[in-house]
């Protein structure tokens, strides 16, 4: 997921970068091996570079800047370093990395540059170069998002592992008075043909004294021992014994708890409140207002202001909150509704063009000349993230410094936001990022963290834990925006597709128009059509909206893959053959399509065990550097309910660091997308979100889950993203299957048969 405001800032800074000197710019992007400050070490531990420490007890500690929110990044990233280092997997430990430029997520930023697919021109290469250099200078951009953790740290972690290995070997060679080149390494031990051997732990202190190899040779893929294997997750044990620490489990001494009720009208605030009754209740120490807060980045709009109660237990804070009488200032969104939102988007589309993010040929002319045209309009609703762990944050502010326990995908940004709220320097903020109980983009935003920081000013130095109720979490999200997509295509008299255009409209999520954030997954379409135009029309509202797993790919894949299916039907061509024809130039896409066809039994008769009719639908999508195709198999019951029985998913992700975890992410991404496709919908009346808990915003249950088959194609040299890639194609695959079964084309999510 892209970090729009930061990115905007960075791109804006490119022009100013000249001030740093032509020489600075001309030099190659700096290494990411060693940070500005040396790593802290415990007794017996030696830091060999900015990514790894080795202890005399043989532990290998990998510095982890990325948040673990279920996507398996901790395990995958540790595997990359451990493999190049020849570390023993059982000896690997993780430690949260400090905030330093070497951990900045370059891939997430560079991938989001507004260049057309296949463009490798001077401007693109130059911009990337400058950005990568700048990213070394601005600390705190180690965001976890955009399916980019492995992609970004693939090279730095391998270099760090290889460099550390060479230092350990050099230390052994020196001690044994032999040549380094004669030594070998395996599972945390250096060996010499003479029979001498030493463990990494024994060598660590001396290794740290060796010169730092800055450009170490890397393994050839055939030499990998861990990469490509399905090692079990490092966090399994903690998560099956209840000992995994989440932010909500932070329990520093003297902890007090806060509960908050925010203005139910989105973006509103407190007009006045009466806390007399609440303050008389047991354990209650304080009742105070909290101002509306922004999300800090990758979002637009504010989370409503509210009233918070601080008490000695969570339950007493919650109970007392119910006793506070609050008058609200409903603000500018008091008349907002889902229908007014869609009406505004629709009428904007009637009169405005938006910004063009991809243009080839002359679509207008080709459509005018076409022998046949096809038009369709699609709609997707607002969606909540509904992470299982509700928003919460613990902050202690004492003696001018703050300690923060926060589930965040953007620790550096959260740090800055807390510092600003408390009026202190960011260096005075110590942020601890435990496991995240789900992220999905929601935890990019610092709103709840900033609220907790404000509360921490009122507790006399005691740590305070703010916990949102599920109702607050559901009604005060940065929702996935609602969008309308309008597509039109033209065929020539021979039946060949000659023109295609898509204009989507809805929020651009706080990004400047030229970045085309909401065209992601459309403006970089691999489909080749002679005349093509992809545009986005930004239509904003007071509602807080932001990024949601797979960001704009989530709606654009539905718009495009539904329309491609309509075109295939109109042309009388098989839907997979239709796509293959438009992707004939793209061998990776063709292979994914042909594998999904073979694995799903595409084209073969379908028979349900009980004799009910079933049909298949296909969708294809490329995002985050990976290519995915899915085939869904559906039926419809007498009550017109759609049931998805089986999904086949094929991904080409270049390199598969851990195939087991990739399958896990594909399954999870599809089920997440299927929850949205079948019933995900946030609605608004009079400025207030109508859903409040899991009874009216219900994710899929186990009994509703399809059987899932996945296949991974991995014969590339660089890894593509994985964590979000399963989500975009599932809604159109199901909608297309429903059409094949019923003849009804469902152009709106969630899918509902008439």
């Amino acid at each position, binding site marked *: 997921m892209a970090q729009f405001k930061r990115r905007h800032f960075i791109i804006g800074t490119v022009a100013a970068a000249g001030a740093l000197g032509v020489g600075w710019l001309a030099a190659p992007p700096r290494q990411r091996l060693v940070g500005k400050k040396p790593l802290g070490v415990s007794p017996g531990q030696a830091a060999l570079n900015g990514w790894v420490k080795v202890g005399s007890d043989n532990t290998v500690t990998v510095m982890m800047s990325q948040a673990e929110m*279920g996507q398996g990044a901790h395990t995958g990233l540790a595997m990359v370093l451990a493999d190049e280092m020849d570390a023993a997997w059982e000896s690997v430990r993780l430690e949260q990395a400090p905030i330093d430029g070497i951990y900045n997520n370059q891939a997430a930023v560079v991938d989001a540059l507004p260049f057309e697919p296949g463009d490798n021109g001077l401007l693109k290469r130059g911009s990337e170069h400058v950005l990568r250099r700048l990213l070394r200078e601005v600390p705190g951009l180690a965001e976890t998002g955009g399916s980019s953790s492995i992609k970004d740290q693939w090279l730095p972690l391998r270099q760090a592992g290889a460099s550390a290995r060479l230092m350990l070997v050099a230390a052994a060679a020196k001690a044994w008075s032999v040549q380094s080149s004669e030594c070998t390494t395996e599972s945390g031990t250096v060996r010499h043909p003479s029979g001498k051997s030493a463990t990494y732990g024994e060598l660590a202190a001396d290794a740290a004294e060796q010169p730092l190899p800055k450009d170490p040779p890397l393994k050839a893929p055939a030499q990998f021992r861990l990469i490509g294997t399905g090692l079990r997750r490092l966090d399994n044990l903690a998560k099956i014994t*209840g000992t995994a620490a989440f932010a909500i489990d932070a329990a520093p001494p003297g902890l007090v708890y806060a509960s908050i009720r925010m203005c139910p009208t989105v973006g509103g605030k407190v007009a006045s409140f009466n806390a007399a009754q609440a303050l008389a209740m047991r354990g209650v120490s304080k009742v105070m207002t909290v101002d509306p807060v922004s999300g800090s980045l990758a979002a637009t709009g504010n989370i409503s202001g509210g009233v918070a109660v601080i008490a000695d237990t969570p339950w007493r804070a919650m109970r007392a909150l119910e006793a506070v009488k609050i008058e609200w200032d409903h603000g500018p969104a008091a008349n907002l509704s889902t229908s007014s939102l869609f009406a505004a988007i629709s009428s904007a589309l009637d009169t405005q063009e938006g910004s063009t993010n991809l243009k080839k040929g002359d679509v207008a002319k080709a459509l005018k000349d076409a022998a046949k045209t096809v038009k369709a309009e699609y709609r997707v609703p607002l969606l909540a993230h509904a992470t*299982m762990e509700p928003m919460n944050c613990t902050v202690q502010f004492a003696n001018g410094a703050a300690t923060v326990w926060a589930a965040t995908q953007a620790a550096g940004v959260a740090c800055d936001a807390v510092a600003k709220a408390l009026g202190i320097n960011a260096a005075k903020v110590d942020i601890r990022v435990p496991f995240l109980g789900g992220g999905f983009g929601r935890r990019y935003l610092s709103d709840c963290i900033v609220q907790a920081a404000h509360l921490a000013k009122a507790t006399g130095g005691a740590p305070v834990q703010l916990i949102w109720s599920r109702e607050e979490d559901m009604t005060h999200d940065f929702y996935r925006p609602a969008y309308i997509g309008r597509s039109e295509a033209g065929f020539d008299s021979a039946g060949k597709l000659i023109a295609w255009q898509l204009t989507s409209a809805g929020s651009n999520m706080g990004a400047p128009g030229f970045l085309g954030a909401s065209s992601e997954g459309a403006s970089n379409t691999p489909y080749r059509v002679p005349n093509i135009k992809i545009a986005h029309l930004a239509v904003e509202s007071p509602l807080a909206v932001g990024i949601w797993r797979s960001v704009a790919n989530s709606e654009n894949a539905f718009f495009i893959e539904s329309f491609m299916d309509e075109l295939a039907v109109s042309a009388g061509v098989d839907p997979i053959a239709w796509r293959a024809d438009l992707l004939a130039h793209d061998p990776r896409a063709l292979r994914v399509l042909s594998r999904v066809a073979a694995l799903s039994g595409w084209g073969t008769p379908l028979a349900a065990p009980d004799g009910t009719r079933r049909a298949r639908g296909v969708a294809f999508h490329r995002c985050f550097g990976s290519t995915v195709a899915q085939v869904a198999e559906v039926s419809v019951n007498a009550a017109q309910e759609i049931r998805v029985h089986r999904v086949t998913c094929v991904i080409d992700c270049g390199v598969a660091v851990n195939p087991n975890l990739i399958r896990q992410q594909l399954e999870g991404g599809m089920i997440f997308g299927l929850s949205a496709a079948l019933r995900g919908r946030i609605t608004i009346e009079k400025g207030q979100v109508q859903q409040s808990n899991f009874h009216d915003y219900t994710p899929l249950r186990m009994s509703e889950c399809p059987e899932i088959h996945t296949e991974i194609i991995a014969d590339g040299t660089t890894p593509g993203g994985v964590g979000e890639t399963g989500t975009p194609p599932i809604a159109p695959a199901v909608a297309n299957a429903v059409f094949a079964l019923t003849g009804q084309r469902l152009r709106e999510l969630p899918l509902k048969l008439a």
Partner: protein
Amino acid sequence: MLTLNINGKTFITDAEADTPLLWVLRGELHLPGTKFGCGKALCGACTVHLNGVAVRSCVTPVAAAAGHEVTTIEGLDDAVAQALRRAWTEIDVVQCGYCQSGQLMSASALLKANPQPSDADIDAAMSGNLCRCGTYPRIRAAIHLAAKGR
């Protein structure tokens, strides 16, 4: 004052009688493995055993638990639990992990009542436990594996 029997140990609490067991476990007894998800018995993240039966601790008043045997994820350590944990690890069930304490508590109650459950039995027993990461197919496979391996 209420006397609680949690994981075989006795605790005294002066929490108000209507305080949900969840908050006493987490806040007072420092057993944070039981998770807050919805507060309305809609998601199952807070599932514990009350006399061996899976209940949602977010809507169970602490007074209703007094005098009964309460087991939380921290105290789940019998043969069934061990089989489930082996299966959970072998199949790599967990993702974010937040719902998994509750999933394991429900799975354990199921296997004790029904050592060889069918898919339909598993669906019925586990349908109250939500997971946003989509670990369901692996949970189902792990329950079957645990049932087989015992």
